[in-house]
Structure formats: structure tokens, C-alpha cells
């Protein structure tokens, strides 16, 4: 083993300590100290956590978080499983289009979709008004648990869909054929063979949705109204009461829930059964009833999931929109009025997200290499430290950075660096994962051959490894960048006036009820991310959905 990978491993540990351990330690200390008191052994207290026992609003937020995330997970799974089966096992129409469209909810920031639901189902929403006008029926309020669960489920269901569809496509079709040959009916094959085989993938997808929903701030802050969840509670403790200590205590509870989810996730993914087969030729149902049902289901889900983005686009062109179903006057006025703001915030976003993505790429690849090719002893430790931030709720990262980087030795508050570091910490695991799987597929003999031919470790990396894993890295980098463009839950606590991002600008417009301008800015944001992903998938010659797996 060369010295370079060992050095890279050490570097990873140092970075993990400063960017993760140190801020999380601050959160811990703050959580056990009262607001306004100096942190010391004598001042340690459980008073901040006591609120979960005595305060009704804390208890509600806790259970609301559990219930809304659980509900969103179940609903997302109910949508995603039949859709995954339909795409993988039925001869449907326009398969590439379906796969491409299914990725859009993951690219578009969820909170943009959330306020589109207000336009549709809010008190003055298009559907609410139409139904009231036609039937005189008053629909239930979109604000609260119902709206949060629906919006979260429609935003995150592609995780279950893509993972399960991938597992179905990768499973050796001969296994299901073997079951049919021994005499099992189609339903029996599905129940006793197919489902048990993909169960680990379903579990992994569900937990990913659960963890994402648990950490989501944008959707509940827009659709929640009085319905508080842990991330919104953190935000109001810090922004409303400037109480970093109670905020930290809530963050710890939020984190504990998430870590619980992660523990289950890793236990499940370890049970993943190897069913990969290179030459598998998928057999698909071709009969008309199956095809019709599959097509209908897929398009209902896709229309529901994409409807919010379509409404945002429509609203962005509305110059006047009174009591009518559709806008009465169309024009580019909204775009003209947000143009200045769009340019500066997009530029800020590109700089911040770009810097973070570049750091993720360099660092994530080197650590992945050290982990895959390195000694087994350090492997699990590295694996854990780098996977943890992947599931850290954005607001927890925000609180941790606010606490840690406000005082010497690291004063970063209000700088661009604090955002870049926060983004880096939240996304480096993504690059790490795609790089690790790409490196794992490169036969280590190729490196040995290169070394035998006289190449140094660095030369082998440059001439052999990077060209081989390059496409995977670019795909990973593009996705990190795209998801950072819409990042709000860490940004909302850490941004400063000089470094306002496009997502914050949209969020402010929504909060001041300027929905037309918010739609224009939101559509620009969506278009920008979509173009980046489309160009990248075109250059790489991959389907967008492949890039997400």
C-alpha cells in the first residue's frame, strides 16, 4: 500500500473532526446548558429536554414529525411499488420518458412544489374555488398534516421507485421463471419470490424517504401552518427566540430519530441478497389489460407529482389572476420584476454550490479510494463518519454550524465559507458512495498492471482510475450540484445578506405572500437545475434515472 491513500484516510478523519465532530459537540454542550449561561460542568442541565415532557407544543412537534414522516413514507411506497413493478415487468409505453420524468421531483426543491399545492388546494386555490363554485362543497384545508404528508410523499416517492425498479431490473429473471416452472402462479411468484427478493430494496427506499421527510423544513414550514414538526420548531426557537440552547436540544432529538432510522437502514441493507446477473434478459407482461393498468397508474402518479411544478410555471406567466380558474392576463411581468434578484441569487448559488461540489468530488473520491482499497480496520469507521452527515437533517447541521463557528478559533458566521462547508458536509457522502461503488467495480489488477508497467500511485490514479470512474463522478457531481441549488434547510439558518441563495429568495417571496414573483423565480430555479442535469445526462449518454441510482 502506498502512503498516499493512508494520508487521504487521515485527512478524512481530520476533516470529519473539524466539520462534523466539533460542531456536533457544540450542539451537545448547548443542549445541556441553559440559555445565557456559560457552558461548564456545574451548569450542565436537562432543563432544555424537560420541555418534551411538559410542553404540549414540543410533544406535538415530536409526534407530528414521526407521524407525518411515517405517513409520507407509507403513501410514497404505495405510489412507488406498483409503479416500479409496472416499469420493470410490464411492456409500458414511453419507458425512457417515464424514467426521466420520475426524477424531476427529486431535482425540483420540494418547497416549490409545496406552495404550488397552496395555489391548487389552498383557501383561494384553483381546485378549491372550482369545487366550491360548481358543487358548493368546501374542501378540507391543505394546511396541516394532510398537505404535509401529500407534498412530502409526492416529492420523495422517486427514491422508492428508482431503488425498487433498479432491483427488479437487476434481478435474474430466471429466478422468477424457475418458480413458474415448478408450478407457481403469477400471484404466487410475486408473493413468495419477487417480493422477498426486493424486500431489502423496498426497506432501503422507505427508510430513505423517512429520513428525508424527517429532516425536511421547506414543506412543513409552508404547508404546516399551526402544524409544527421538529425542524420548524428548531427554526422558530432560533429565529423567533434566539435560543440556541433549546434549538440544540430539539436538534438532538431530531438527530436521534434520524440515527435510529439509519441504524435500521444499515441493518436492512446488509441483508441485501446478491441477485445480479449480467446477461439477464427481462421478460415483461405484454397482455393488454396489464399494459393498460400499468400505463394508467404510472401517468396518474406522474401527473400528480408534476402538477405542482406545472402550476408554478403557469402562475409565473400570470400577470393578473382574479377569481377565474386560469389567469386572465399572461405576460412576462413577473420575470421582469425578479430579474435583478434572480441574477444575483443565481450567481451566489452557483458559486456556493459549485465550490461545495468541487470539494465533495476531490475529497469524496480520495476517501472512497482509501475505504475500498484500504485496510479493513479503518473501513467501517470511515464508512460511518462519512455516511452520518448524509442523513443529518439540514437544520441540525445549521444549528451545529451556528453554534460552533460563531466564536474563535473558527469564526465563519456570515461568510460564504460556512455555507460551502455545510453543503460539503451534507453532500460529500453522496460522492463518496458513487465513487466507492465505481472504484469497487474496477478490477484491482488494473492498478497492479499499471504499477508493474512503472507508474506511481498518482500516475495510476490519473491514467487508469480517474478515466474509468470519471462518468460516475461527473454524474454524482451534477446531482450534488442540482440538489444544492434548491437546498433550504441548512441555508435558512446560515445565510447572510451578502450570500443570499435563490432558494432563500423564493422562500422569502412565498412568506411575504408574493406568489406570482415566487413562481417566476421558482420556475427559473427549476429550469436551471433541469438544464444542468439534462446537459450532463446528454454528455454522459445516460438516462437521468440511472444517474440517481
Amino acid at each position, binding site marked *: 500500500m502506498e502512503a498516499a491513500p493512508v494520508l487521504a484516510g487521515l485527512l478524512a478523519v481530520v476533516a470529519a473532526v473539524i466539520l462534523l465532530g466539533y460542531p456536533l459537540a457544540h450542539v451537545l454542550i448547548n443542549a445541556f446548558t441553559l440559555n445565557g449561561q456559560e457552558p461548564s460542568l456545574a451548569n450542565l442541565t436537562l432543563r432544555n429536554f424537560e420541555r418534551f415532557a411538559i410542553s404540549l407544543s414540543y410533544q406535538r412537534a415530536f409526534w407530528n414529525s414521526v407521524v407525518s414522516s411515517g405517513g409520507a413514507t407509507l403513501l410514497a411506497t404505495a405510489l412507488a411499488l406498483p409503479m416500479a413493478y409496472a416499469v420493470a415487468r410490464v411492456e409500458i409505453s414511453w419507458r425512457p420518458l417515464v424514467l426521466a420524468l420520475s426524477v424531476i421531483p427529486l431535482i425540483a426543491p420540494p418547497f416549490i412544489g409545496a406552495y404550488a399545492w397552496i395555489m391548487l388546494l389552498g383557501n383561494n386555490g384553483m381546485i378549491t374555488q372550482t369545487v366550491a363554485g360548481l358543487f358548493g362543497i368546501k374542501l378540507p384545508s391543505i394546511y396541516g398534516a394532510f398537505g404535509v404528508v401529500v407534498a412530502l410523499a409526492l416529492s420523495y416517492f422517486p427514491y422508492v421507485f428508482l431503488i425498487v425498479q433498479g432491483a427488479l431490473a437487476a434481478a*435474474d429473471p430466471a429466478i422468477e*421463471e424457475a*418458480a413458474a*416452472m*415448478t408450478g*407457481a402462479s403469477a400471484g404466487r411468484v410475486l408473493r413468495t419470490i419477487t417480493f422477498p427478493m426486493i424486500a431489502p430494496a423496498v426497506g432501503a427506499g422507505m427508510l430513505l424517504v423517512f429520513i428525508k421527510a424527517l429532516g425536511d423544513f421547506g414543506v412543513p414550514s409552508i404547508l404546516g401552518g399551526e402544524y409544527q414538526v421538529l425542524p420548524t420548531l428548531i427554526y422558530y426557537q432560533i429565529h423567533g427566540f434566539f435560543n440556541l440552547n433549546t434549538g440544540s436540544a430539539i436538534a438532538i432529538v431530531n438527530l436521534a430519530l434520524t440515527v435510529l432510522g439509519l441504524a435500521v437502514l444499515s441493518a436492512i441493507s446488509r441483508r441485501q441478497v446478491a*441477485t445480479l*446477473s449480467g446477461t439477464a434478459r427481462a*421478460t415483461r407482461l405484454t397482455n393488454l389489460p396489464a399494459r393498460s393498468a400499468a400505463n394508467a397508474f404510472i401517468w396518474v402518479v406522474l401527473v400528480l407529482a408534476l402538477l405542482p411544478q406545472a402550476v408554478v410555471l403557469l402562475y409565473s406567466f400570470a400577470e393578473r389572476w382574479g377569481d377565474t380558474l386560469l389567469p386572465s392576463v399572461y405576460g412576462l411581468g413577473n420575470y421582469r420584476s425578479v430579474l435583478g434578484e434572480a441574477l444575483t441569487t443565481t450567481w451566489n448559488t452557483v458559486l456556493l454550490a459549485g465550490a461545495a461540489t468541487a470539494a465533495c468530488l476531490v475529497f469524496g473520491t480520495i476517501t472512497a479510494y482509501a475505504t475500498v482499497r484500504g485496510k479493513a480496520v479503518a473501513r467501517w469507521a470511515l464508512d460511518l463518519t462519512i455516511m452520518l452527515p448524509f442523513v443529518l437533517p439540514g437544520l441540525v447541521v445549521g444549528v451545529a454550524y451556528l453554534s460552533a463557528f460563531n466564536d474563535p478559533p473558527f469564526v465563519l458566521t456570515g461568510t460564504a465559507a460556512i455555507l460551502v462547508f455545510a453543503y460539503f458536509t451534507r453532500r460529500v457522502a453522496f460522492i463518496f458512495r458513487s465513487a466507492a461503488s465505481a472504484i469497487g467495480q474496477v478490477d484491482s489488477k488494473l492498478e497492479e498492471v499499471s504499477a508493474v508497467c512503472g507508474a506511481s500511485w498518482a500516475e495510476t490514479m490519473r491514467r487508469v482510475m480517474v478515466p474509468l470512474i470519471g462518468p460516475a463522478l461527473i454524474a454524482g457531481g451534477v446531482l450534488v450540484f442540482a440538489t444544492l441549488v434548491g437546498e433550504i434547510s441548512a441555508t435558512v439558518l446560515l445565510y447572510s445578506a451578502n450570500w443570499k441563495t435563490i432558494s432563500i429568495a423564493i422562500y422569502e417571496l412565498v412568506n411575504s405572500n408574493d406568489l406570482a414573483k415566487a413562481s417566476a423565480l421558482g420556475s427559473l430555479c427549476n429550469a436551471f437545475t433541469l438544464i444542468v442535469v439534462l446537459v450532463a445526462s446528454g454528455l454522459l449518454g445516460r438516462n437521468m434515472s440511472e444517474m440517481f441510482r
Partner: protein
Amino acid sequence: MAVDGLVITSLSKRFVVGGTPFTAVADVNLTVEPGEFFTMLGPSGCGKTTTLRMIAGLETPDSGAIRFRDRDLATVPARQRNIGMVFQSYALFPHLSVFENVAYGLRLRGVAAGEIGQRVAEVLDLLQLGGHGDRLPASLSGGQQQRVSIARALVYRPDILLLDEPLANLDAKLRLHMREEIRSLQRRLGIMAIYVTHDQEEAMAISDRLAVFDRGKLVQIGQPTAVYESPATLFVADFIGKANFIPVRRVGDGRSGSVVLPWGETMQAGRTMPAAPDDLGVIPADADGAIMVRPERIALDAQAGAVSGRIKRVQFLGSIVRYAVAIAGVPVDLLVERARPIHGLSEGAACRLGFAAADAILYKRAGAP
């Protein structure tokens, strides 16, 4: 008419690959007798596996019929055909133990729990898997996984056993061992077996009869010795064993089978048959046909023989020695196989060789005299 066997008539299947239609199986006719070990042999993409999958009911024929015991299988779904199938990838259920993998078909047939235990134990013993019942497939070696997949296919006493390249993923030594085991198991159970492989040696060693496929068509069907001794086409001759092709011009009245070899020798070929249209590319444009001689039928000596040549290469393969010989004065190389090395014939040495007319088969070009 074979009432008890499997009868395939005019079977055809087309696929569309990337927008272009492609004929996988074209007008295949064959019959498999009860208790017979029948092999479908050919290079990859020749249609043998597609034919097997149509017998299994995993693919639907475009036209033609498959009948078993005088019953048309067209409307019988795979799961009701009572056929056992062994897949190349074994296709073991990864989440079920060895016991449960094997028991799967019995549970579907509503067999009582006690009998399931007994029958699974029986078939596991038969395949030397006793004591492995509790293990998961992933913890078994390739050979063991192979046995489990055979056990799973046999346990419910199917009418036909289909095997799709079952030995392709095993190493050479295990492959030889397993093929003997499969053959003796099939003999003991007296079950009809249909076997697919691209390995001609395997096919000859294991089969009662074999069918050679080429680009979707069934080219020849027969016992291994018959196919080897009298290949229907140059393709079959080349695919089954080693073969020498020598372009010839015909002399005489055209019925006698008299030919002139490139080195001027006149010969009366032992047998004559028309060359298949697909074989015409192998025969040079200026030749009337080609004669085929097996390498072990050519005599090679330092002094005696009709033709003179020079040894280009000697390959010592253990049980045989293979010589590549360049014929003097003409651009023809012949392969010769001997049981043991011939003294004095090292690479570069001059030699003499010859073969009996009875061992030569003439494939004549259509329209040639």
C-alpha cells in the same frame, strides 16, 4: 407416430432487437422419445435456447406446434406443464434455504409436510447434498448450487427435464464430473431430458441423440457417431470435432464422384452430398466443391505417403499429438492427429501423408458437373 414423446413441428420464433426483426428459430421439426437424452447443440445465437424456452412455455412460438403425449401445449402455461428446468445461472431463490428451494414445487402441489421432508431429503441425498438443507444458496460452491437447482427440478417428478447450459459456469474438472453425474441420474430415473449446450464434446459425450442448430435452423439430427461420421454440411463438420476442407475440381461424368485434389491426385470420394447454400462461402469460387477428411483419418509418415509436405507446427495434447502440415506446392494446410508422436517429425521436417478415399466426403457445389 411417437405417441409418448415430444413432437415439435414447424416451430418458428422472431424477436425484434433494436427495431430490426430477427429470426431466432426457423421452421424446426424434431421428436424426442421417452427416456431419451436429447441435446440441442450450436454456437451462441443459433436458436437452441429459444427452442428450449418454447418447450418450457417461457416463450410463445410465432407459429408451429409443440405436442407432448399427443397433447398440444400451446395453451398450457409454463407452470402447468409439469416440466423441470435447470438454468445456466442456477436461479436459486436467494432468500430461501437449500431445503426450501427444493421443497418449493412440492409445497405448490399441496404435498403433506411429512412427505415433503422425506422427498426433499431423498433427492438431496441423491445429489449428495445431505446435511446442507439449512444453508442459504450464497454459502454454497458453484457445483453445490448446480446440484440444488437439479434437485429442485427433479423433486416433483416432472415429465421432462430441461437443462439450459447447466455446466457453463463450472470449472473444467467439475464440468466433466457433473456431466457424468447428470447422465447417470437421467438413466436411473428414466426421465426424458433435453439439454442445451454450445460445447460439442459435452454434447457427444452425454447424448443419445443430438440436434445441431445454425442461425435458427436445425441442420442435422442424429446419434453422436452418425453426426460425426456423416456431417450433413461443412458447418456441422467444422462444429463437431476438427475437420480438414480441401477444395477440389470434379472430373468425369459428374455422377462418379471423381475429383482432382489441389496437388494433382485424382480420387474417388467415398461419399458425395450437395453442399448447403450456407457452405458456399467456404468453397473457393473456382472449385466445384470440397472434400472433408477428419484429422485422425490422415496417415502421416516420414517416408511413405502420396503427398509430400512440411511440418509447420506440432502440438502435444497428452492423449493425442496434433500436426499442422503445409502441402508442398499448393496453398493448403492439413491438420493431422496421431495417438503418439512420430519419430523424426519435428517442426520444419519434411514428411509424406495420405488418406483413404473411403474417409473422404465430397460436398459438391450445386450446378457443378
